[in-house]
């Protein structure tokens, strides 16, 4: 694994983008804690991009930690597992922050649970081998990753085994582990990199083995020097390169990170795979290691609970399926001035209307904002200043796209490449006229007639 042999290197940055206040101070210093096991969890069968899992249990079935609750129903799908030992209560339906109604399996805890330090040790603690991983075949790694229900933990929740399955038409030479966490406020990846660098490195090596990549790079924004140092120490002698990249939003977008680190441009409408790169989040990398080396399916994840609207911001290891309410309760609840609860960060996160919503595999954080931070300026006329275009990491002209969306002028929308928009939010953030550019473009993309 000779990582240094590769010449193709990015500059550590990408064109345009924005510099919002990072606001990491709320929770960056809070060491990871393990949430006490809740009495009950409700696990959505669709937490990922693709087809929902099929329920594999009935009410009153006994389950243990790791029991399969739902089985992947196709190639682009992911199984779900119980984070608790206990009993299936019922099969229900919930609404996720993205507005989708999804079937769920509710599990009530019964008896002794693996909790606290023991849970941490099982998932992240102890030694993690970085040598001898070549004895595992790529197919075996892919199969375990698939069975463990792994999906991307950065937010988009794309099934991981799909990325890792080698495609002869598109050979992969690089696994890029995304430790940017460029969203303001969020600190979950930061804490995980600082406190559990070893499983991240091991998981990255396993991903490279599965995908057939020769180079492994972990990209971390340069506002997280402790994470870089911890990862470098853990990666010593493994060939894994830890590269510090410029702190700029949206550095953690995979198109931007591939350009920053590897210096390749992902084609519009394509995937990093098209330029020989597989991108996985640091949380996903650690989950790959836990699945392959310890047989642990994805049942828990690290969530940042942060923002000025939370009494005690924290970084927590929580079971998937626990409600936002219970997580917030553990952090002292909401402050009186809290006005918005977000799944994720403030740029791409989704507002949550019901705190009974369960945490899913893609929940990177719970950010609670007060009236001070949320968008509130009244919209005024566009003065065509072009700031949106100077912020757009894709080099689009957002004001035109928003205009086209507002007037449903699909020819104009296509002429200005509306489908290339990644909805990162930079344009709406900078607009001096407070036009909800991203929101309009998102609507336009959804309404755009198929060709």
């Amino acid at each position: 694994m000779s990582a240094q042999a590769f010449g193709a290197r990015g500059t550590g940055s990408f064109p345009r983008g924005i510099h919002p206040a990072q606001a990491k101070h709320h929770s960056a210093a809070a060491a990871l804690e393990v949430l006490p096991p809740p009495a009950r969890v409700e696990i959505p069968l669709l937490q990922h991009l693709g087809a929902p899992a099929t329920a594999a249990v009935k009410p009153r079935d006994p389950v243990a930690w790791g029991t399969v609750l739902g089985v992947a129903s196709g190639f682009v799908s992911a199984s779900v597992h119980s984070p608790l030992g206990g009993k299936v209560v019922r099969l229900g339906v919930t609404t996720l922050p993205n507005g989708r109604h999804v079937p769920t399996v509710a599990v009530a805890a019964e008896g002794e649970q693996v909790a606290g330090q023991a849970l941490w040790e099982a998932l992240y603690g102890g030694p993690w081998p970085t040598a001898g991983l070549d004895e595992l075949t790529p197919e075996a790694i892919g199969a375990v990753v698939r069975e463990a229900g792994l999906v991307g933990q950065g937010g988009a929740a794309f099934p991981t085994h799909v990325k890792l399955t080698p495609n002869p038409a598109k050979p992969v030479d690089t696994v890029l582990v995304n430790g940017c966490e460029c969203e303001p406020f969020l600190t979950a990846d930061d804490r995980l990199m600082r406190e559990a660098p070893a499983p991240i490195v091991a998981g990255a090596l396993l991903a490279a083995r599965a995908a057939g990549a020769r180079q492994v790079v972990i990209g971390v924004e340069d506002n997280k020097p402790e994470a870089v140092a911890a990862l470098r120490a853990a990666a010593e002698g493994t060939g894994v390169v830890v590269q510090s990249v410029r702190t700029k939003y949206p550095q953690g977008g995979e198109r931007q990170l591939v350009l920053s680190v590897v210096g390749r441009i992902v084609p519009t409408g394509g995937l990093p795979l098209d330029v020989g790169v597989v991108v996985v989040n640091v949380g996903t990398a650690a989950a790959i290691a836990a699945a392959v080396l310890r047989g642990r399916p994805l049942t828990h994840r690290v969530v940042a609970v942060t923002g000025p609207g939370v009494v005690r911001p924290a970084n927590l290891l929580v079971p998937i399926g626990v409600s936002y309410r219970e997580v917030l309760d553990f952090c002292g609840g909401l402050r009186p001035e809290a006005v918005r609860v977000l799944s994720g960060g403030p740029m791409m996160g989704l507002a949550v209307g019901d705190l009974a919503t369960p945490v899913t595999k893609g929940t990177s954080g719970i950010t609670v904002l007060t009236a001070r931070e949320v968008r509130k300026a009244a919209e005024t006329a566009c003065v065509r200043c072009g700031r949106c275009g100077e912020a757009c990491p894709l080099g689009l002209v957002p004001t035109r796209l928003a205009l086209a969306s507002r007037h449903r002028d699909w020819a104009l929308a296509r002429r200005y490449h509306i489908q290339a928009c990644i909805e990162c939010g930079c344009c709406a953030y900078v607009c001096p006229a407070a036009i909800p550019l991203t929101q309009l473009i998102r609507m336009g993309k959804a309404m755009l007639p198929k060709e």
Partner: protein
Amino acid sequence: MTMVAHPPDRVGPSAIVHVAPGPHLQDAAFTTRRMMADVLVGLAPVMAAAVAVFGWFAVMQVGICGLACLAAEYLFHTVMRRKPATLGDLSAVVTGAILGLSLPWSAPWYVGVIGSFAAIGFGKVVFGGLGMNLFNPAMVGRAFVMISFSVALGAGAFVLPDAPSVLSQATPLTVGKMTGEVTPLWPLFVGNVNGSLGETSAIACLLGGLWILVRRAGTWDAPLAIVGTVAVLSAGAQLAGIHPSLTVGHHLLGGSLLFGALFIATDPVTSPLTRSGRAVFGILIGLFVMVIRLFSGYPEGVMFAVLLANAMVPLINRWTVPTPLGGPVPGPVQKGGGA
């Protein structure tokens, strides 16, 4: 935007959780109003130079135009179109200041008033108000009065025969074009020459323009393209012997080139959306300025050059649609082809 009343149970006293589409943050420091305020700050050195050269005439002209533009905005926009008052966005003040600074010191008071009403009325409100106008409002107003009061704004209007100061001299570009006399460059740089109020001092324009660019109230693309184009074309004209008394320095420092490049061509509303578009826009302005200066009856052409280039902005925008970072969106044909 919905607000979901939510039973909070044990979570905090807040009973209402707002739901709205992201992004949930906004750069509150940068607003349209701040952009306009920055343009006004950028105009301050120009105003100071105008007062130094022309005294109370400068204060009077700019004051008249500023107040008249505010009155016109209120009348046309708020009274007649029944739209909410927009005086607070400062755009009318900016138009008034630029219009006032582009007039000769000698223009009678009603020229400024009529120019202001034409600027706001024909230049802005008929198009739908701020952000909708095709032409720079101040230049529309100036063109209107220039054609309506050709004597009061012609080259002769600048000259007061028995005044002891620079006011007794013809403007440098007129001198160069008509008599072949060479004006020294230093007065052009500091501003101790005759001309429209805001145009005489190159250093004041550069200082104010720098402020606008640093504060990002305007972009540098168009000014750079204008200055570059004029420099190249005037060097060519000098080599070709057209009006040999006007050197590259005269073309760059004289007339309202820097004022126009830094304060008028940087108007975001009437310039193209993209960087390459603004470069094309600037090159066109530079080209039109030189054509008018060298081959027309007018000694100066920045106003008409800007208006002509404004008319081409929609076309320029069509020509300069940027390609996304990863290339154009693949069509349905390419998708099936596996290229």
